[in-house]
């Protein structure tokens, strides 16, 4: 923005002082303008369009008309509820796995890495230098039937364990729910690690010393001091993982099979192949609302936990 605060001094006889002052108070609003305009054009308008589309009837050949047909939601849900629930199941699993992997990683970087801290942080972000698609495709190679990972799983009977959990069907890892969850966990791990790191790094080391001084063993000190103080990072990290993971359609497409279809894939198909716009729009809205509700409940629970 070019709206700068008026500079005192510098003789400007023509410019009256009063209006300049009033304009200065508008600066915050002017600064908001580009962001608001962006949101209106690229978020609010498409939302309204999507909402209206979900309530339309018709066909691609004859055109669609707004008929306020609420029934589309019911039809879409009865047809695709299993994909919706599966998406949340996969996303939740990937989030929990991400937390289990990410917390120790963030903890180590924050407290134990010393001068390697920045190097390790760059390594966490490094995957972003290649595209999401390429990274997921790479997992196809990693999990391929003749690869070392599959060999290891077969040799150690981990494959049998996964099979008994219905995470794989045959003797392969690719094209299984296991592969999809692994892909989701991997792809969203940086979103978990960075907020965790940020909140762990802020913890005053003297609080941990005080914990030890007050008879807390290292594990108790972690449970009573470090963990509660890192909760903001846990909440942020899990949200940043869960939300995009629930709507993801690349991992299930490239690493899964027809029985691992996630809701994002369904929406993608309805929009671009079946060309059933109302159903696709209704599913998009349902997904969004479901995530909103889940997140609201989660944040509220986590928020009260923090106060205990």
């Amino acid at each position, binding site marked *: 923005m070019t709206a700068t605060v008026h500079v005192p001094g510098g003789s400007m006889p023509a410019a009256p002082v009063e209006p300049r002052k009033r304009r200065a108070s508008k600066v915050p609003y002017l600064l908001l303008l580009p962001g608001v305009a962006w949101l209106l054009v690229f978020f609010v308008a498409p939302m309204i369009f999507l909402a209206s589309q979900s309530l339309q009837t018709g066909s691609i050949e004859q055109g669609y008309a707004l008929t306020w047909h609420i029934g589309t939601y019911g039809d879409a849900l009865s047809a695709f509820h299993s994909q919706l629930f599966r998406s949340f199941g996969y996303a939740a699993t990937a989030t929990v796995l991400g937390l289990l992997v990410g917390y120790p990683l963030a903890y180590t970087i924050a407290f134990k890495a010393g001068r390697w801290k920045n190097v390790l942080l760059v390594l966490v972000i490094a995957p972003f230098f290649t595209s999401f698609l390429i990274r997921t495709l790479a997992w196809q190679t990693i999990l391929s039937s003749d690869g070392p990972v599959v060999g290891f799983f077969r040799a150690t009977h981990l494959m049998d364990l996964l099979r008994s959990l219905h995470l794989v069907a045959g003797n392969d890892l690719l094209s299984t729910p296991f592969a999809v969850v692994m892909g989701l966990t991997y792809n969203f791990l940086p979103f978990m690690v960075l907020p965790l790191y940020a909140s762990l790094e802020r913890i005053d080391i003297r609080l941990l*010393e005080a914990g030890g001084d007050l008879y807390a063993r290292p594990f108790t000190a972690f449970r009573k001091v470090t963990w509660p103080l890192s909760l903001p990072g846990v909440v942020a990290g899990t949200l940043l993982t869960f939300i995009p993971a629930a709507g993801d359609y690349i991992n299930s497409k490239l690493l899964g099979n027809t029985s691992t279809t996630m809701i994002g894939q369904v929406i993608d198909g309805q929009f671009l192949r079946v060309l059933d716009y109302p159903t696709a729009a209704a599913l998009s809205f349902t997904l969004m609302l479901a995530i909103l509700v889940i997140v609201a409940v989660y944040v509220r629970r986590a928020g009260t936990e923090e106060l205990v």
Partner: protein
Amino acid sequence: MAETASTGGDLHLQSLTKQFGSFVAVDDLSLTIPQGSFFALLGPSGCGKTTTLRMVAGLEEPTAGRILIGADDITDTKPYRRPVNTVFQNYALFPHLDIFENVAFGLRRRGSKNVKQQVDDVLELIELGHLARRKPTQLSGGQQQRVALARAIVNHPSVLLLDEPLGALDLKLRRQMQLELKRIQTEVGLTFVHVTHDQEEAMTMADTIAVMNNGRIEQLGDPASLYENPVTTFVANFLGQSNLVRARVTSRSGEHLTVDVQGTTFTMPRARCTSESDDIWMGVRPEKIQVNATAAGANTILGTVTDTSYIGVSTQYLVQLGFGQELTVVRQNDGAPILRPGQEVYLSWEPAHTFGLDARQDAKAGVEREEGELVPAGDAS
């Protein structure tokens, strides 16, 4: 903890040494702190006092030496097993817990009974019972300080460590908390080891002070004897102000020592001179110097007033002696007229108020230059 009733709760430091790389933070320190005493480790920043405290707390591992409480060697004991609690410099209160839970933290970890009763009692002692459910950030600095103290003393440690506990408070609050700390210490009867760089704070509260410098103890004693009988120039300058004048011993007869200062003769008790050498620093505290209009008796020297600063309760003068050195003189404002710069005066002091230090020491050691304080007169050269 349990054995606080027995007399064997003295804290012993034996040849304690801590090195960080090649830097010796604490150098072969040996010390016994009697149970129930209020002990101060006093020194400038970087003198090793905090490192000593952290070694007692178990937060720092000694390079060499032992730490004992009574007969128990705790040198290798984990911090969470030591009967020692610390009041941290910036309190280190748990921000996610309320005041009650902060104070109850140590009791809960040890599975203590009557947690509520004990916490309520100690909150009563620090007069913050009504704020039990507040979070630390909702309290003022002075209140947070008292909570940090309560959180430590509720555990009845054998030794309570205080690391610059009043450093973050403003001057007025600090004075108030000094009295409060002393009251609480008397009431609970625990051994307090107090680390501070503020000599006034140490003198107000402590029974015994150890003045530390460069990782060693310069002098140990009660506040009055440290102030009246400093044995090094560092102590003379760090604890209050001192005038140190280069002098030459001319005779040692019986109880007395006669010295010559640029042609003027002074006497002092032989016991108050710590040096056997003939070259000494003759020291006298600014408030011990009498100012007279005429020469009266022995231990008298002529000088010219060069600076006057009126402080209210007293007036501080700089008086230049014939050979150029300036002495600091402090005079109570008891009605005597204020001296003007340029005025000639005779300075005198009791032989018993004079002390002698080894002349090989730096006369400026321990001089505080903070807060625009006057630098006490030192070497004339």
